[in-house]
């Protein structure tokens, strides 16, 4: 009796172990199932909301343009893309790349380029005439050592101020006023503070990074700002100190519960008339329009003071991984992404603007029209808070410094943290 029971127990236990081993085996098989001709696995973190709608619209165009090629959705949800990036890193490490993957255009691609994991697409740009369809200043921002590694699908603008004209009027500030510098703006912010409203609403740490980058852009100018990322502007210099002082002044004008909020809450303060201004990227327009607010009547949007004529961009883009299962279908996907039809369909659904200037934008929204106009004629610079200007480790260090400053208010310490971050990351 006892013997049988023991033997049975051992049998069950060994069985369980075998089953576990089998599970391990089968899951690794699933990972490489995308291989084979006639299909392209598109790896993104667009799994819900307007991003999903945009992807669906893009796939529709892709199916029309490439009837024989099957689209395989490789979207990984969660963590605003950080989960997807971790999954992607392990797939690239085991030489199991998807057909193409989403990445923020610009410096976020640095790691992939340095490791030789994505292909140079300059020939594709040449062949398809994309060099003429995308603005030259955008191409300059995408070019690394004379090569372009990704195809941008959409453009957002980060250097915008959103304002509530009713609040401005009540505080005795002219809503039609334009500001050509931070100092002029700060003077009006003080009036609003005196009137008892929040002059500038802001949310948690990354929105503060967004504000910081626009202040740097405003005070240092385009060349000075670009120099921060290529080493020609000194982070420890006195002009950066001045910009950080302005940033401190602005931060003192913000809502004290900023750490408890995320960007929609901060934008809502402007919509509700509790705050006068909010600095946020142009995805905020959806929040205003979603509540039936009319552009230039119920809300205003213009470049952050001192950055008129500058377009602080961020973009999503697609790549050709080295060793992609089927480079021909990957090329089909990139062609659709770059095409005017693909760009139009995708951006209309997502609420951004097309990177390709030939896309038909006649029925885009009122705000988008102004963005499209600026995009075609402004100087284009790369956004820090959204992965275009600096590699992700650098951005993480800057975010930590901004979060610390928000608590300590110590400008000297802030500047030395930023300078340390630049030393550490520019070298690596």
């Amino acid at each position: 009796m006892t013997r049988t029971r023991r033997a049975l127990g051992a049998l069950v236990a060994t069985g369980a172990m075998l089953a576990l081993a089998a599970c391990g085996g089968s899951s690794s098989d699933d990972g490489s199932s995308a291989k084979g001709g006639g299909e392209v696995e598109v790896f993104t973190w667009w799994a819900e909301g307007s991003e999903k709608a945009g992807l669906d619209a893009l796939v529709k165009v892709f199916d029309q343009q490439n009837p024989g090629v099957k689209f395989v959705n490789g979207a990984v949800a969660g963590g605003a893309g950080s989960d997807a990036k971790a999954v992607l890193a392990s797939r690239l490490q085991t030489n199991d790349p998807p057909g193409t993957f989403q990445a923020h255009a610009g410096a976020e691609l640095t790691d992939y380029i340095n490791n030789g994991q994505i292909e140079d697409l300059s020939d594709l740009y040449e062949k398809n005439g994309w060099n003429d369809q995308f603005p030259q200043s955008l191409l300059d921002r995408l070019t690394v050592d004379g090569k372009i590694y990704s195809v941008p699908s959409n453009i957002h603008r980060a250097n915008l101020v959103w304002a509530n004209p009713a609040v401005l009027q009540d505080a005795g500030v002219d809503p039609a006023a334009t500001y050509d510098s931070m100092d002029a703006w700060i003077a009006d912010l003080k009036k609003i503070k005196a009137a008892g409203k929040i002059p500038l609403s802001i949310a948690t740490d990354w929105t503060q990074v967004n504000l910081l980058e626009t202040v740097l852009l405003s005070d240092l100018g385009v060349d000075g700002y670009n120099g921060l990322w290529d080493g020609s502007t000194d982070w420890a210099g006195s002009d950066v100190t001045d910009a950080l002082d302005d940033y401190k002044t602005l931060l003192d004008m913000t809502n004290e519960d900023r750490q408890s909020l995320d960007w929609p809450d901060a934008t809502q303060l402007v919509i509700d008339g509790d705050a006068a201004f909010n600095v946020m990227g142009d995805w905020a327009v959806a929040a205003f329009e979603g509540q039936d607010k009319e552009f230039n009547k119920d809300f205003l949007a213009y470049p952050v003071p001192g950055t008129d004529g500058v377009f602080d961009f961020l973009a999503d883009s697609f790549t050709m991984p080295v060793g992609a299962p089927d480079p021909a279908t990957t090329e089909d996907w990139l062609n659709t992404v770059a095409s005017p039809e693909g760009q139009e369909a995708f951006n209309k659904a997502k609420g951004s603007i097309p990177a390709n200037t030939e896309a038909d934008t006649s029925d885009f929204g009122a705000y988008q029209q102004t963005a499209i106009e600026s995009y075609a004629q402004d100087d284009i610079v790369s956004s820090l808070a959204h992965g275009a200007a600096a590699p992700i480790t650098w951005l993480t260090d800057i975010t930590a410094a901004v979060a610390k400053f928000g608590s300590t208010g110590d400008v000297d310490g802030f500047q030395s943290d930023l300078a340390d971050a630049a030393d550490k990351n520019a070298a690596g």
Partner: protein
Amino acid sequence: MNRGWRSWGPPVLLVLPSMILIGVFVYGLIGVNINTSLTDQHHRLGGGSFVGLENYRTLFHDDTFVYSLRNLGIYTVTFVCGTLFFGFLWAWLLEKGVRGEGGFRAVYLFPMAVSFIASGVVWRWLLNSAEGDRAGGLNRLFENVGLGFLANPWWTNETWGIVAIAIPAIWQLSGYVMALFLAGFRGIPDELREAARVDGASEWQLYRHVLFPQLSPVALSAIVIAGHMSLKVFDLIMAIAGPTNYTTQVPATQMWTKFTSGDYATSAAIGTILLCIVALLIVPYLVYTYRQERRS
């Protein structure tokens, strides 16, 4: 020979799968983690040559990391003292004999059933740092009942912010510690109290010399359980303050931000440090209980 196999074979076979699984997935991966922490893999891809203790040196020279260790210390002390105090208090009140003890027990224990993430979402609102007109949550409550001077910035205070995070944690786990103490109280035979009373012990002497010594193993378990939970605090902070907020930085949130930015080596080094800190608490406890068992 054959008999020997029959007697030890089946038990070994039974234990073997779990030994292999734990060996690979716990100890093996701890080894991999320590190994990663000794390399320079600061990006998602590439890197990985051996740099010795370089990452640890950098960390201990990093003000923010030292600040996060300090936060962890304050949090742990507050949390352990708080849960012990309230847990003991409630257990003592129930022990004194209250009507509807079952109901109270359920009420106190119930918060433990809620996940830290779910309660964190509510506490994020309760602990809103705005004061004055825009105050919400507890600050609003204070102002409405005329205790406006109590309104404070909660977890956004640079020095004591982390203590605000301990409040929800204490609320959630005091009931558990209460259950432990209650079981301890119930395990003390009535004869001991009666004997003490017959010998003329006052109520305080009864507690001091009879009940507390009997409860000390329970208190030790409670300290170890609460202590190691607080050292690993992460979900509550993520839900209330988010991963990047400076005033609530602890090693676990630092590990998370470093990991998500692809700085695997630094992240692994923080993980190893955290493991060592928890081991400092757990290992002496394990040695102690092992000795106790041997003695009995």
